[in-house]
């Protein structure tokens, strides 16, 4: 087929493209995956029984904001990386800032604490399972983000995969936090972040294979 004929064929009967459709479908997929993650958390792990008491502590909201801010920044990176020729711009700073803030908060907390209390702040009661449970709760979100990215056209596949994995990890951590009893900043800065990094690494490894077009 000659190139002119191909052009003719592509243009023939080409209908209007709804510019908002991709965003609408992405939001629907994210909402559905978040519901799945919530059901997974509630069914498998159970809601934190002391949630109501926890919710009056400032650290509870610091934790929720931490996860939500990382999730939002991760999703912004995904949205940029999903379209050809879009620059990431300052979006990665949105990931770096909450991390840095939590690490500073954690370091101050550790320095101010009695030496014998420090291991409690660092490891809490659930350090050995926390990252894996966050990764598990992230699974539906990970699938949704891969689906969203596949419907668009990322050109840096490894980076786009990592961003999708990170966003799913952060939103997964937000969901997981409704089960989690830990509120100490050093704990969150280490084990929550590790939990988010598991899907990030998986996304970076699978990106070139899953997102190719």
């Amino acid at each position, binding site marked *: *087929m*000659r*190139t*002119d*004929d*191909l*052009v*003719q*064929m*592509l*243009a*023939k*009967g*080409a*209908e*209007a*493209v*709804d*510019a908002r*459709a*991709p965003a609408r479908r992405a939001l629907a997929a994210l909402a559905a995956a978040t519901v799945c993650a919530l059901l997974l958390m509630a069914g498998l792990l159970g809601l934190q029984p002391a949630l109501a008491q926890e919710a009056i502590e400032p650290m509870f909201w610091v934790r929720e904001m931490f996860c939500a801010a990382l999730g939002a920044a991760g999703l912004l990176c995904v949205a940029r990386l*999903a*379209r*050809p*020729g*879009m620059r990431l711009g300052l979006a990665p700073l949105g990931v770096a800032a909450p991390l840095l803030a939590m690490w500073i908060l954690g370091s101050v907390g550790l320095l101010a604490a009695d030496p014998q209390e420090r291991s409690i702040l660092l490891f809490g009661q659930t350090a050995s399972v926390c990252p894996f449970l966050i990764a598990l709760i992230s699974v539906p979100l990970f699938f949704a983000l891969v689906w969203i990215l596949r419907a*668009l*056209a990322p*050109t840096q596949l490894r980076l786009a995969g990592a961003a999708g994995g990170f966003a799913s990890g952060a939103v997964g951590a937000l969901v997981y936090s409704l089960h989690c009893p830990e509120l100490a900043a050093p704990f969150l800065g280490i084990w929550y972040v590790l939990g988010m990094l598991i899907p990030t690494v998986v996304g970076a490894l699978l990106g070139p294979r899953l997102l*190719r*077009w």
Partner: protein
Amino acid sequence: MLSKEERLRGLLLRGLAGESSAYHEFLKELAAHLRAFLRRRLARMPEEVEDLVQESLLAVHNQRHTYDPNQPLTAWVLALARYKLIDLLRRRSRTDLLHDPLPEESELLAASDEEAANARRDIAKLLDGLPDRHRLPILYVKLEGLSVAEAARRAGMSESAIKVGVHRGLKALAQRVRSKP
């Protein structure tokens, strides 16, 4: 006088709004720019140029929903074309050519070349190999120019199946184009 960027962007936006004659004009001019651009980029593999022009056009069409109207058109097209170029060089194991300096945005619209060489790969043949649910909608709507309703009657499919068939069929075609040497 409008710059080339503004002119092409205007044509694309009208095309995305459903004006297929503007879209046709857009693709035609873009093909000439892509050809000139890729001919310079693939100076050491001239036989690949026309195939890659076609592959890039198919990508532009299939991914046209990812164009953000606030974004420079050149940046968007160049990112698509560069992705397809790198993909080709990897497939040909010619990663040595990746060390050529990366294309600049100003380079894409700098020249235009309307002299199409022959593509080595025949998209029409690849089209014949598609399953009927993809092939018939493309054949009736895109090649014979029937309306969706007429195509649905002729193929014995629903109108939405025709639309989905065209959309998915062109994506499937791009997959085949990519995997054919």
